[in-house]
């Protein structure tokens, strides 16, 4: 930890925002600070439009969500302060499950539009995930080299940093997109069940940033998922989580299984990935109960790693300590 990090971390603790990613220093002077571990759930059935989605409604949902996250602050001000114009912003999507189970391209396009309006040039935005082929299968167009446009490539194009990042049970090479190309990251996981680790949301989405995710699914991902999310390189660059819950899946994941997908028409926004994952877990459990599936614990895949992350102090895992703000629900 260098002197600057030490001072910033001290300020964070002093301000009571120890779970939160730390925006540029002027953010607190311009906008209201978010309540610790607030998770905003925005639901709007009007987002669905003749078999697809309505881009204008998604845009409004984003504005409303980000505004509520920061206590009704002007959305554009929040975007500007979270993502300074000189930043290169990585958008970490989740594409492994193909087009229907991935972060929706329309949502990602709406996020890009917000960033552009906040002053980020297209060439400073990178959509990324594990493999080029995953991105293409999910409907994204690859752009590896043209720096005048939004770039889009997988770790197989970016390569991995040659440092071995170690934390607790995890030792991995980390994508250069995260370590070298991006200053900040918007994490866009999909609200869905996972057949081994219970659910796959904010924290688990960073399995797509390392070279050896296959090593970390044992014991329902506990403590591996938490140990990975605790890594400094991830915590330092994660600025915002926008969980894609336009379609959500409560069983059979992570592959897309249409019989267990429901049109939730929602987004979840948070700065605390642990809190968002805890809320997402609760939503999936409720849907499972409603449709006759056993709780994840009985299914042998309780996402204990979320509680571990809470115990580690990297986020809030206690539901009654999370401010779960619902809009349109």
């Amino acid at each position: 930890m260098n002197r600057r990090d030490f001072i910033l971390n001290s300020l964070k603790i002093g301000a009571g925002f120890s779970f939160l990613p730390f925006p540029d220093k002027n953010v607190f002077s311009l906008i209201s600070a978010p309540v610790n571990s607030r998770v905003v759930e925005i639901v709007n059935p009007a987002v669905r439009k003749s078999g697809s989605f309505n881009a204008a409604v998604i845009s409004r949902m984003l504005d409303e969500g980000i505004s509520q996250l920061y206590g009704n602050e002007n959305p554009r001000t929040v975007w500007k302060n979270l993502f300074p114009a000189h930043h290169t912003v990585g958008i970490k999507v989740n594409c492994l499950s193909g087009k229907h189970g991935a972060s929706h391209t329309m949502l990602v396009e709406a996020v890009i539009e917000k960033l552009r309006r906040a002053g980020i040039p297209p060439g400073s935005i990178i959509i990324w995930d594990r493999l080029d082929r995953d991105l293409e299968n999910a409907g994204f167009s690859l752009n590896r080299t043209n720096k005048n446009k939004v770039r889009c490539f997988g770790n197989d194009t970016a390569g991995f940093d040659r440092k071995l990042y170690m934390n607790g049970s995890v030792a991995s090479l980390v994508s250069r997109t995260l370590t070298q190309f991006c200053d900040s990251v918007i994490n866009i996981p999909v609200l869905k069940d996972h057949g081994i680790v219970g659910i796959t949301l904010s924290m688990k989405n960073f399995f797509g940033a390392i070279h050896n995710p296959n090593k970390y699914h044992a014991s329902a991902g506990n403590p591996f998922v938490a140990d990975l999310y605790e890594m400094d390189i991830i915590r330092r660059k994660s600025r915002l989580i926008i969980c894609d819950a336009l379609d959500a899946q409560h069983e059979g994941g992570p592959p897309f299984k249409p019989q267990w997908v429901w049109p939730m028409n929602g987004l979840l926004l948070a700065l605390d990935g642990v809190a968002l994952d805890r809320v997402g877990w609760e939503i999936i459990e409720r849907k499972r109960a409603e449709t006759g599936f056993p709780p994840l614990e009985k299914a042998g895949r309780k996402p204990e790693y979320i509680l571990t992350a809470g115990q580690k102090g990297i986020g809030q895992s206690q539901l009654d300590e999370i401010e779960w703000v619902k809009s349109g629900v």
Partner: protein
Amino acid sequence: MNKTYDAERRLFIKNCAAVSGGSLLASLLPAPDLFAAASPGVDRAFEARWYEKLPYKKVKCKLCPRECVVDDRERGYCGVRENWDGVYYSLVYSHPCTYHIDPIEKKPLFHFLPGAAAFSLATVGCNVDCKFCQNWQISQTRPEQVDNFDLSPKEIAEMARTDRIPVIACTYSEPVVFSEYMHDIAREGNDRNIRSVMISNGYIQEAPMRELAKVLTAVKIDLKAFTEKYYREIVAGELKPVLDTLVLLRKLGIWTEIVYLMVPTLNDSDRELKQLSVWIARNLGKDMPVHFTRFYPQYRMQNLPPTPLKTLERARDIALGEGLHYVYVGNVPGHAGENTYCPNCQKALIRRKGFLIMENRLENGKCPDCGASIPGIWT
């Protein structure tokens, strides 16, 4: 606290350790290029031989005891087998990431064609995750993260034949994860009078091991410790299936040798070494060669020193004391414990220095002094 280690510094230390320890493997392996290479995709894949199809396009891998249940578009723990629409594929068949010609002593196999050259190859991937792995840059990566060759089993066997190399060794990473490829290479090798050996952790199910045994001539097993705790915490595997493999290999009559890497304070107690030796003598026989080899700090285990020589000598003494006949000290070039001695008259039969054979006095597999038969494959 997060820890990062600079790769350049690590490489330097590794090379120093490799040279000083006599293990040239680390320095000989090409550094995998983690910045290039295309995704292998199923177009370059080969359907796996040992798996079960499950409902909803899931599969259960039946290759190693881990029995990964793998969802569509996901991979198993090894990282080199992928489920695609309910069909499980090996992504590394015909795609080795490295090949090299080594002396057989480097494997090490000491009772197998002394001084022979071995055409040695590996693909990426491993079904465990040893914290001390010296080849983690290939064993703990995925196919798309390194440059790979396109070499069919037939091409491998032909390369060995052309260079008059009598042995093909599947080694470096973990051959279990490329079992189909290894099997077919060995079959092609046999057709050309080239013998094949597997240098493995032994973490494999019985059925695939039986299939492999039909085409392999010898096996070296890394028995990493003699406690489940060590296997669980340091290896991310299990001891019991490895012991089962050793017993199976003996039953099948495959020439086998054991390597036991001595990691200071973690698997080097007198008690554990005694239990190990007793188990080997009872279950595998006193003629089973055992190599106690020196550990060097690698990968995630940078906090321990190299194994003291005295520890290795103590281990050898304990094993000899329990009646084992062929106990070696490894990774200590020039040590007397590298030599093969006749268990009957105690005379030195094969003198080694590192990977070199300095003298081989065996005559038709027998001690020239007392006539005792020395087990192994000598011709």
